[in-house]
């Protein structure tokens, strides 16, 4: 733990050309990451860019297929998080990976228990836990189960645990996502302490302001590759965001999506509006309007609060502040059933987990939510079901051998159509689409996009969340940019371009001039 001499400190970690495939699909194609001693290194990238996989390769959770890892100049190959920990690499995972039923002390000391006469020395362990937590200005009863404390405290316990292992390198995967501002301040002061002790930190976060506050270097990943490494003070926010999304700020391309031009004259009155919505840290102040026949797009980086806002609108979570109105009347959904009754539908981002039932047939999946309506005295009306199913297969162009094919056997695009059809069969007025074309091949993507536009032309209000910039810019009639849980900018389709949206995502304002980093 000696302080390096002046000049660039030695390389602590050197990961080069790392490759990793899952079931043949590359998660890491050509990833590199170099961290110097005593350096706080930001690792950023969109969802699926490979950050987590890279970290899990380093900590021995996954085994790499190719590439080289040097740690303190030596080849480094571990096969379990335990070995990584013993060798000086501690990790704080994004979801708090502790055991809520066990005491704070156990969660901090498990794996490096203190012993006396070969048996656990509880007094010493409690004292150690208290000492570590006192660095964070946290004084709690360490004998109580961890689960009794709030998320922020649990996060601090996770960090205390990592530091307690006298690590040379601490990896923090979105450590601030559950902390409030004061707690973030405490965390940053701990990071500065670590840095002063020569400990390196890999800091994964989507909050750009934080990166500039605490990090020295940044590595940007995209599609499993390292696309850029730079000193934090030499790269602007806009450049950072553009590199993450793989956009060239200067070049504005032609049409990349199948939305095409829309006749916006048919967009009517405001149907839904939200004012000052808030819930916890994820959604802090979001306001937007949605008109009949309009496609409203939510743009923003990961963690900006887009999906969380959609869940509030759909009644899946409850807002702690703000108001919503639907068709002029106050709207307070307690549960999704209320939202559905008000005429809403929600195609979630997690198609496999929350949407389709793979082992059931197309017909069954399609009419799952409709069963009460197409049953007579509790008995399914076969002919009505067939009629509805066949109509949607035809209208949406679902490619399947017939209504009785299992959904599992369909392509991603056709599964998405089945899901869409399920909601459309309910005859909704407002449909929320969270990443409607994720994981779908290009051809099917275009079909889904055309379909969305056709639905809007028929008067459906669509709230579309997408991480693909061109999808939002070309598809939406109106764009709301969210940043750190706040709706910072509203852009009309005519006025929107990539630069404006990127700038709003990076700086929180649409003014492209006068922005500073």
């Amino acid at each position, binding site marked *: 733990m000696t302080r390096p001499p002046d000049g660039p400190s030695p390389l602590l970690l050197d990961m080069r050309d790392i490759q990793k495939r899952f079931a043949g699909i590359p998660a890491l194609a050509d990833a590199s990451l170099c961290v110097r001693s005593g350096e706080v290194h930001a690792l950023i990238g969109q969802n699926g860019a490979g950050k987590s996989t890279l970290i899990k390769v380093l900590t021995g959770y996954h085994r790499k297929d190719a590439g080289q890892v040097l740690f303190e100049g030596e080849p480094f190959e571990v096969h379990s998080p335990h070995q990584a920990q013993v060798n000086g690499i501690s990790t704080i995972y994004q979801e708090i*990976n502790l055991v809520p039923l066990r005491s704070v002390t156990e969660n901090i000391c498990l794996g490096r228990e203190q012993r006396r006469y070969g048996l*656990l020395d509880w007094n010493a362990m409690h004292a150690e836990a208290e000492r570590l937590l006192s660095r964070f200005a946290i004084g709690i009863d360490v004998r109580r189960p961890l689960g009794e404390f709030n998320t922020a405290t649990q996060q601090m316990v996770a960090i205390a645990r990592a530091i307690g292992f006298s690590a040379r390198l601490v990896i923090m995967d979105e450590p601030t996502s559950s902390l409030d501002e004061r707690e973030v301040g405490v965390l940053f002061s701990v990071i500065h302490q670590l840095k002063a002790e020569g400990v390196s930190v890999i800091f994964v976060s989507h909050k750009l302001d934080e990166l500039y506050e605490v990090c020295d270097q940044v590595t940007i990943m995209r599609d499993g590759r390292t696309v850029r490494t730079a000193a934090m003070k030499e790269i602007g926010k806009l450049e950072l965001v553009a590199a993450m999304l793989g956009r060239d700020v200067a070049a504005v391309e032609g049409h990349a999506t199948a939305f095409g031009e829309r006749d916006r004259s048919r967009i009517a009155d405001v149907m839904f509006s939200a004012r000052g919505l808030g819930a916890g840290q994820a959604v802090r102040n979001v306001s937007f309007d949605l008109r009949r026949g309009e496609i409203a797009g939510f743009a923003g980086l990961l963690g900006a609060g887009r999906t969380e806002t959609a869940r509030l609108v759909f009644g899946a979570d409850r807002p702690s502040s703000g108001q919503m109105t639907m068709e002029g009347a106050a709207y307070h959904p307690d549960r999704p059933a209320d939202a559905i009754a008000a005429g809403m539908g929600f195609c979630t981002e997690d198609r496999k987990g929350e949407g389709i039932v793979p082992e059931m047939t197309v017909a069954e999946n399609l009419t799952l939510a409709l069963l009460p309506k197409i049953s007579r005295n509790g008995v399914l009306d076969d002919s009505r079901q067939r009629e509805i199913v066949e109509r949607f297969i035809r209208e949406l162009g679902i490619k399947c051998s017939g209504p009785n094919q299992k959904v599992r056997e369909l392509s991603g695009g056709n599964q998405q159509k089945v899901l869409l059809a399920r909601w459309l069969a309910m005859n909704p007025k407002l449909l929320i689409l969270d990443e409607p074309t994720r994981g779908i091949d290009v051809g099917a993507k275009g079909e889904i996009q055309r379909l969305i536009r056709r639905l809007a032309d028929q008067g459906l209000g669509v709230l579309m969340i997408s991480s693909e910039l061109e999808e939002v810019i070309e598809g939406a009639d109106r764009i709301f940019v969210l940043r750190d849980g706040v709706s910072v900018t509203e852009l009309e389709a005519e006025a929107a371009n990539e630069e404006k949206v990127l700038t709003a995502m990076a700086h929180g304002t649409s003014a492209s001039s006068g922005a500073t980093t």
Partner: protein
Amino acid sequence: MNRARLVRIIGTYGVLIALAALILFGFLRYDRFLSFYNVMSLLRYNSMFALVALGMCFVIMTGGIDLSVGSVAALGSVASALASPYGIVPGLAAGIGAGLAAGLINATLVTRANLMPFIATLATMQAASGSALLLAGNQTVSVSYESGFTAIGQGNFWTFPIPAAIAVVAYLIGSLVLNYTGTGRAVLAIGGGEDASRLMGLRTDRVKFLVYVASGGLAGLAGVILASQFGAGQPIEGVGWELFAIAAVVVGGTLLTGGSGSVVTTLAGVLLLGILFNVLNFENGMGWISLSAYWQSVIRGLFLLVVVLLQARLTRRRLNAL
């Protein structure tokens, strides 16, 4: 917070209160309930279940289950009866060895082949039962009375039954391991969150391996006591022991989902169930009611159901309070 604490205390110590109440009830209602003879034979008989429940307790705390304990005990009783002519030590070694072997199979299936504990131990249950019948030639195997083997089950240590003394020692060791070793804490951590524990750097597979081997060994030891106490290796005994053990563990406040539990209250759970059946016998003896063994089974089943339902409610409240 305080409410959470209260719920936790009831969950943990409720069994002790119930145990005290039941003993008081028996004492007031039956003349010879607290007689020396009744107490000692109660302890002697239930020591087998106590050993099986101890192993089960550790398995359940990791979030697993061991359904094979009953037939493994039967196998252990046969193996030890066959070895009993050679003396106490060979008898013990044969019974415990058979149990450890079965435990090793469970451990391998669960940690190496990644089978669900329910399925893995169900298979072992069948296999052990069959092996016991094969080994015994489809009948009970008399133990040798000359070698002194019967002392394990029938003998006294001063005036205290030897099998009960074995159980007490086993529980002391179990409690020490759970509360004062890293392995013990890892058992609870794994039950509370296996993936989290692995990411914390705990060697989860090794710990799980150990608990299944230990459960098998303890079931084997229970089998030795069974053979020694009743003078015969009994290939068809042990049916339903796993349910008794699971019930005792659950009554003792250990979460069926793992992550939280106690060895001492598991012992209290064994005693509570043992005394309950003892009380039913006394009721029969008083002639007020006449309960066949079948009716006793029904009553036991209902009782277990009530306990598990109560714990499920308590657990839900506890997890909500967290």
